[in-house]
């Protein structure tokens, strides 16, 4: 009944929780970045690593610890609200774990197809929204009377979004060709985990009325993107070293 896998899960959760607390309560867990908030956090990385290595439950427990630490340490009133500080953090490890296992188990061909389909979908949506087919756009707008979320793009905005999408997809395909599948899965899991943190926390803060929607969007872009990049770099380095993915295999 009590297998070694279970014991290992408990211990990894405990130790990564300790690292979370260590990063949170010393200033190591914060990297200075040129944004108004001045610091990008890496405190959520143990939750992502725990989710990748030992599954959703471990990720969730570590996320709970992260939430609790940020709740205890909060200097902004918004983070003294458990609904903002703790609840969203539960899902960092969970989403990272799901993304990792989905991508790690999939074949490369399947991944190429998924990336291709997603790109085509995004491009189609952008095309429709930028008013290339006026009839369709009118239909969509009449569907959503408020049309707050689906405001029509201008053609150049559509071009930028489309360009970024194609560039991201091309980069991903190139990365998949070059690197081990485990590395790509880890990187994507880190990106999604980091985004989960940013998006859910700011959404909760907006819903609870601490920030206005505009403030949240600006903080999200300024804070979320550097945090995502940093968490991809650090998480890939950690998981590759522990699991011995990719080129590191030969060296060790």
């Amino acid at each position, binding site marked *: *009944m*009590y297998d*070694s896998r*279970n*014991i*290992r899960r*408990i*211990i*990894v*959760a*405990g*130790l*990564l*929780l*300790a*690292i979370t*607390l*260590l*990063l949170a*309560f*010393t*200033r*190591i867990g914060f*990297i*200075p*970045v*040129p944004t108004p908030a*001045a610091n*990008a956090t*890496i405190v959520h*990385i*143990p939750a992502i*690593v725990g989710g990748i*290595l030992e599954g959703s439950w471990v990720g969730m*427990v570590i996320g709970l*610890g992260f939430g609790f*630490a940020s*709740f*205890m*340490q*909060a*200097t*902004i*009133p918004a983070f*003294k*609200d*458990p609904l903002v500080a703790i609840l969203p953090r539960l899902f960092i490890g969970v989403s990272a774990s799901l993304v990792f296992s989905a991508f790690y188990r999939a074949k490369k061909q399947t991944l190429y197809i998924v990336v291709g389909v997603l790109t085509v979908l995004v491009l189609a949506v952008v095309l429709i929204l930028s008013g290339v087919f006026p009839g369709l756009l009118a239909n969509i707008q009449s569907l959503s009377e408020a049309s707050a979320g689906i405001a029509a793009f201008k053609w150049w905005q559509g071009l930028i979004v489309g360009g970024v999408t194609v560039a991201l997809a091309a980069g991903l395909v190139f990365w998949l060709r070059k690197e081990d599948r485990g590395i790509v899965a880890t990187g994507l899991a880190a990106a999604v985990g980091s985004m989960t943190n940013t998006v859910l926390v700011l959404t909760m803060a907006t819903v609870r*009325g*601490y920030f*206005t929607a505009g*403030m949240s969007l600006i903080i999200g872009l300024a804070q979320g993107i*550097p945090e995502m*990049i*940093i968490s991809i*770099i*650090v998480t890939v*380095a*950690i998981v590759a*070293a*522990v699991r011995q993915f990719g080129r590191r295999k030969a060296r060790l």
Partner: protein
Amino acid sequence: MASLEGLRHVSIGQYLPTGSFVHRLDARLKLAACVALLAALLLARGYLVNIALLIAIIGLVTAARLPLSYLLASLKPALPFIVILTVMQLLFYGRGTGGSAVWVEWGSLVISAEGVQLVVVSLIRFIGLLLCVSLLTNTTTSSALTHGVEWWLRPLTAIGLPGHELALVLAIALRFLPILGEELEAIGQAQASRTITTGTVSRWHFMAGARRIANLIVPLFVSTLRRADELALAMQARCYQGGKGRTQLNPSNWRTADTFAALVAVAVLAVVIILRHFPIP
């Protein structure tokens, strides 16, 4: 390098043994009472109730013989940030929903009575929550806290969730926190001896900053996960079988004072919830 010194002294909410009656209360009760007070703070509406709660919490802190200035000291570095956020919230809150009185209007900047109330209440709430959590961690040892958490998680075990395991996770984390702190310090010195600097860099070179942090963090994770293997083996060798039939070294005993304190905490929460339905300023 100087930033790495003192990592081994990491502690969350340092236990301050002043021997007051708050310290002697049962850890299980203190956990629950702390949660009840936090809930009361979050649910309280209006100026009066919030101020009353804050005064009650400050009273408890005094009764626990904890120095108030010590508890609030952690706020000092963040003070400018708090002020800026407060002002922004005040200016950009808008008119609110209830058609409350508008005090200042200048272009798109509106200061309404509702906005002021929101700001003042969130400040009070913020200080109250800080004091409340410090009150728990400063008057309870970490082992007592762990046993308290385990006791409260027992119902989870009944419905098949790993209550005991969660408490064990917490115990491992608290136990290894100083050890990992020492480890991090050692890694920092080892990297410095290889001329890999670990200090801070300009915020514009945040990628370099990330790489420097990675120089510290990656070895820490790798050695920690290796330690996890050893610990797992050690626990298996000692036939760890989960929470069934485990006993405690120092079982806590429930006293009359605990029952009384529990009743007070429940009463406070109940009063706050009832007062939500009355129009009190």
